[in-house]
């Protein structure tokens, strides 16, 4: 049976996030030839509608309200439930992002529905769709199905390839919703993550560990990351030592990332660190200890001093890029 599937679009720094395009691709599979409807929520989001269509949404619904400028679970919850009421979807896809993780359980609870979180792959289509998700911090995987009714999933960034962007046409309509009774007031957002590329969506991550030795020690890593259009990450060892902010921590108690290229410099490769990055497509390890555990998961390794290797690597990339 073909399904109607809603996708929640998300923006960051004034642009749609990649994970939204990935979510559209996931929704296409779940729909099994049915309809994919993009949903945009905010104070001014209608301009993004056309781009959702170009990435594969059949049409788009926008909900705009001054109270939706910042995300709150109450505000977005009311907006999204109004869309559900109008559309009666058979599937829903969110990104497994801060917003998606916070909002999806609320919506699932209101619909008394199952929810399959943090999906990294989809096998089959339509009613036969089976969802793959990591469990035990990536040490194992499970395949899960919805038993009945709604197929509701969140997709982990960087795992499901988006559809090609094409000039396409589709309706962008607005739904007016009265947003009331918000129980949370957002006071401020203090920016701690780096400008530009978001860690969870970065295609290249240059991560440093205790071996980086100081805050300044991260500078050559940042330079390499900038050159490659990537982001800097860190081990908990580096965060605990105060070389960098915890917002950079990768691992079981930090972020889980799956970039195309993960360069680990001065990181020993503790199991809790591996939990956050071992599913990266290609892993490079730079460590002066040839016995370091990180070499066991690395595709390519260089045994050496990171302060020598990283700047050379930057120079070498400059030559060929």
């Amino acid at each position, binding site marked *: 049976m073909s399904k109607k599937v809603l996708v929640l679009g998300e923006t960051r720094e004034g642009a749609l996030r990649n994970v939204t395009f990935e979510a559209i691709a996931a929704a296409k599979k779940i729909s099994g030839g049915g309809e994919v409807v993009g949903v945009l929520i905010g104070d001014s989001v209608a301009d993004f509608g056309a781009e959702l269509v170009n990435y594969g949404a059949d049409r788009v619904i926008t909900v705009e309200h001054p109270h939706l400028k910042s995300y709150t679970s109450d505000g977005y919850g009311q907006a999204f439930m109004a869309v559900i009421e109008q559309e009666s979807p058979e599937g829903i896809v969110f990104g497994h992002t801060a917003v998606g*993780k916070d909002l999806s359980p609320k919506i699932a609870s209101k619909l008394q529905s199952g929810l399959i*979180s943090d999906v990294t792959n989809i096998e089959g289509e339509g009613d036969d769709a089976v969802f793959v998700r990591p469990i035990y911090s990536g040490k194992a995987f499970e395949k899960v199905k919805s038993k009945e009714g709604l197929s509701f999933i969140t997709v982990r960034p960087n795992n499901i390839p988006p559809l090609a962007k094409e000039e396409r046409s589709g309706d962008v309509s607005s739904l007016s919703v009265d947003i009331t009774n918000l129980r949370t007031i957002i006071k401020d957002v203090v920016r701690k993550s780096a400008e530009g590329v978001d860690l969870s969506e970065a295609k290249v991550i240059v991560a440093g560990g205790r071996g980086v030795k100081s805050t300044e020690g991260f500078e050559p890593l940042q330079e390499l990351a900038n050159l490659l259009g990537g982001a800097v990450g860190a081990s908990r060892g580096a965060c605990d030592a105060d070389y960098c902010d915890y917002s950079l921590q990768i691992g079981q108690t930090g972020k889980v990332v799956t970039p195309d290229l993960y360069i680990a410099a001065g990181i020993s490769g503790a199991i809790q660190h591996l939990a956050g990055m071992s599913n990266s*497509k290609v892993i490079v390890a730079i460590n002066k200890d040839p016995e370091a555990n990180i070499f066991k998961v690395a595709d390519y390794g260089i045994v050496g001093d990171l302060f020598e290797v990283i700047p050379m690597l930057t120079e070498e990339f400059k030559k060929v890029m």
Partner: protein
Amino acid sequence: MNIYVLVKRTFDTEEKLVISGGKIQDDGAEFIINPYDEYAIEEAITVRDEHGGEVTVITIGGEEAEKQLRTALAMGADKAVLINTEDDLEEMDEFTTSYILAEYLKDKDADLILAGNVAIDGGSGQVGPRVADLLGINYVTTITSLKIDGTTATIVRDIEGDAEELETSLPLLVTAQQGLNEPRYPSLPGIMKAKKKPLEELELDDLDIEEDDVEAKTETIEIYLPPKKEAGRVLEGDISAQVSELVGLLRNEAKVI
């Protein structure tokens, strides 16, 4: 203040996983309190010490989960509740777990409920917000700071690395993120006292829950280990030759740059 903490018993982070018969083998494995739930317990104790009241820790699980509850009591929680589903339920999902927790909590007049933001085994991060929604109370996820003044809560939460400051009111459910606090270790006197603290054991019957009410909405059809990664290539030669070889490999063999 009437404070509840949702606690899950999980695999120790260092454990190797073995799958047989389609299930994760847990005989002989070490179990711990889910690390994020330790932050939740610590925060609950701190709030109680400042504002008075009582901290109750709740878990759904089998008989063995008593050990993690005793640890929470040794840290300083006042009471524990084990909802034992072992004999009643074969299959559970996040819907099931949340429904049972909410049925227990619905007439408890909780001012504050704390949970972990995610369990490191199941990894869905659903249970906290689902429980709050079922109870009709507000929730804030991945918090790194909590200040309570009367019924006002001032909170900092982590949103993908950025810090969002917000204000809301009790009753409230929050989920803990790393950075919230440093969980204490149980002291020896704490461990002695914990043995005498009340630990109530309930079954679904005691909560008037029928098995049909909590039937899972999703179904796990397979559990498997990721394919073993081939040992990688450690490059050789002088460092500058290794560096240019690496750049070549990343561009031409791995094709990621």
